[in-house]
């Protein structure tokens, strides 16, 4: 994977009629990087991510995600990415293991492969003792880790996280991010969108989008130094309200 960016976009653009939702997005995210993709409501984040996930064809420019050309290699692209949202869709009446097998199965993993992957993932997620438990009976922090496991079952190279830790306590949140750092250390690229700047603090680099354009892209420390903001919330307000 050396040399080629895990997420690459040049001039990526999407118009809806006269409205330009994403205007000439340039982005280069390396393998194993944790990248925060921030912006106000309506700034174009969702449109950009839908393009990068192969759900929406671009109107212009080009992008490659995990080596696949966006808008062309759509089938391969979907197999190489994972997606997890705060509003995760686990099956409450399936056990932990069954959920993992279900989501892995959707991505075409065979029985033996699924069993091996579950044995590898469940201990890492701290869920090995819960494998036979009904998902509906788990505390929120556990569901969140299981949801991450389901997004990782098919060994994606790029993981998209949408407000992944909304609503959980800070201890569970830190535990969750430790898992994310482990994945990144294994080379998985993590692409995070969130409205919550305390989540943005966990990213290695962040971009901030305003009205379809990226107006800033740097490490959290770099952005604080540049804008004089004390934290990411402050940085965001200074850049977006400028």
């Amino acid at each position, binding site marked *: 994977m050396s040399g080629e960016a895990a997420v690459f976009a040049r001039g990526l653009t999407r118009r809806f009629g006269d409205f330009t939702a994403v205007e000439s997005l340039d982005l280069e995210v390396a393998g194993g990087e944790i990248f925060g993709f921030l*912006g*106000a409501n309506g700034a174009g984040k969702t449109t950009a991510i839908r393009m990068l996930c192969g759900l929406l064809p671009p109107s212009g420019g080009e992008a490659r995600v995990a080596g696949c050309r966006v808008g062309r290699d759509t089938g391969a692209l979907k197999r190489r990415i994972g997606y997890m949202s705060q509003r995760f869709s686990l099956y409450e009446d399936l056990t932990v293991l069954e959920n993992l097998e279900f989501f892995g199965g959707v991505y075409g993993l065979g029985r033996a492969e699924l069993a091996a992957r579950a044995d590898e993932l469940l201990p890492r997620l701290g869920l090995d003792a819960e494998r036979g438990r009904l998902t509906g009976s788990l505390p*929120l922090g556990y569901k969140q880790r299981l949801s991450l496991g389901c997004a990782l079952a098919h060994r994606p190279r790029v993981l998209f996280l949408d407000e992944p830790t909304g*609503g959980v*306590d800070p201890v569970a949140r830190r535990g969750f991010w430790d898992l994310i750092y482990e994945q990144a250390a294994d080379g998985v690229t993590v692409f995070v969108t969130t*409205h919550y*700047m305390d989540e943005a*603090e966990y990213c290695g680099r962040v971009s901030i989008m305003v009205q379809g354009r990226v107006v800033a892209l740097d490490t959290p420390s770099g952005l604080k130094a540049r804008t004089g903001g004390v934290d990411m919330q402050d940085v965001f*307000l200074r850049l977006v309200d400028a």
Partner: protein
Amino acid sequence: MNAADGMSGAAIRVEGLRKSYGGRAAVRGLDLAVAPGRICGLIGPDGAGKTTTMRIVCGLLRPDAGVARVLGRDSAREPRAVRERLGYMPQRFSLYPDLTVAENLRFFADLFGVPASERVRREAELMEFSRLGPFRQRRAGQLSGGMKQKLALSCTLIHTPEVLVLDEPTTGVDPVSRREFWRILRELAGRGLALLVSTPYMDEAGLCDEVVLMHEGRAIARGTPDEVAATFPRRLLEVRGAGLPAALTILTTSPLPGVKVHRYGDRLHVVHDDAAQADEVARLLANAGVELHPVAPGIEDAFVELMAAPAGGEATP
């Protein structure tokens, strides 16, 4: 106007509140007081008991034990009297998406029996106050998330309540709209309203006059945001720089007793207790290519530390 219960000056007063659902305790002995003109934040994760507490304050749910009073009235015994002087915005406030902004306001004015003579003036006031005036003919379903929340708040205020109870009003709202929303809350407090606001987000704690940190149905700390952050009994060193991965490896492969390391993106936070430990960390990282700075703990640091503490105790400054 007698906005407070005579004894204490509190507009909202909660004492010894308990509530279980089936066998599961949602609130296990909570005390709380909010004075007129103050914003009190209930801060805690999902499942901490915030919503249950608020529903009891609003008279929508009866407590198993304890009492909630609003402007001196018991919410469980006189729910109607309480609701007349209280505005409640639940997590999923129901606006009518196919009605316009103005029509939604009119609907809630009907619901709360706002007299026709007051209605026009009140609507104009709320439109100006929420800056929704230019959108009064827009359907609620077509508003942005931030504007929907402002409209929901306006509907909650239509009957001129003296007490406001807002359950996670800024969830899903971007930082710019959130700041605008909090500006409005501050203005309401300035007019003498008492506000009880819940949020799972620690970074909103600093916007409240006082916060109650909730965990598993109990208050684990309370006070001004600074006072709560100051309950954190340990020290923090922030580690930054190009050598961060090397520094992390050093600190995790040769852990120091009593020292904890948390990673935050491009920084590490090293939790320690004294200067000797800080010196030891500095010595270990001398050649790692990083800078070390002492930093002040935040509410989240306090929360994490308090969660690890034995149950039952409450930190008060």
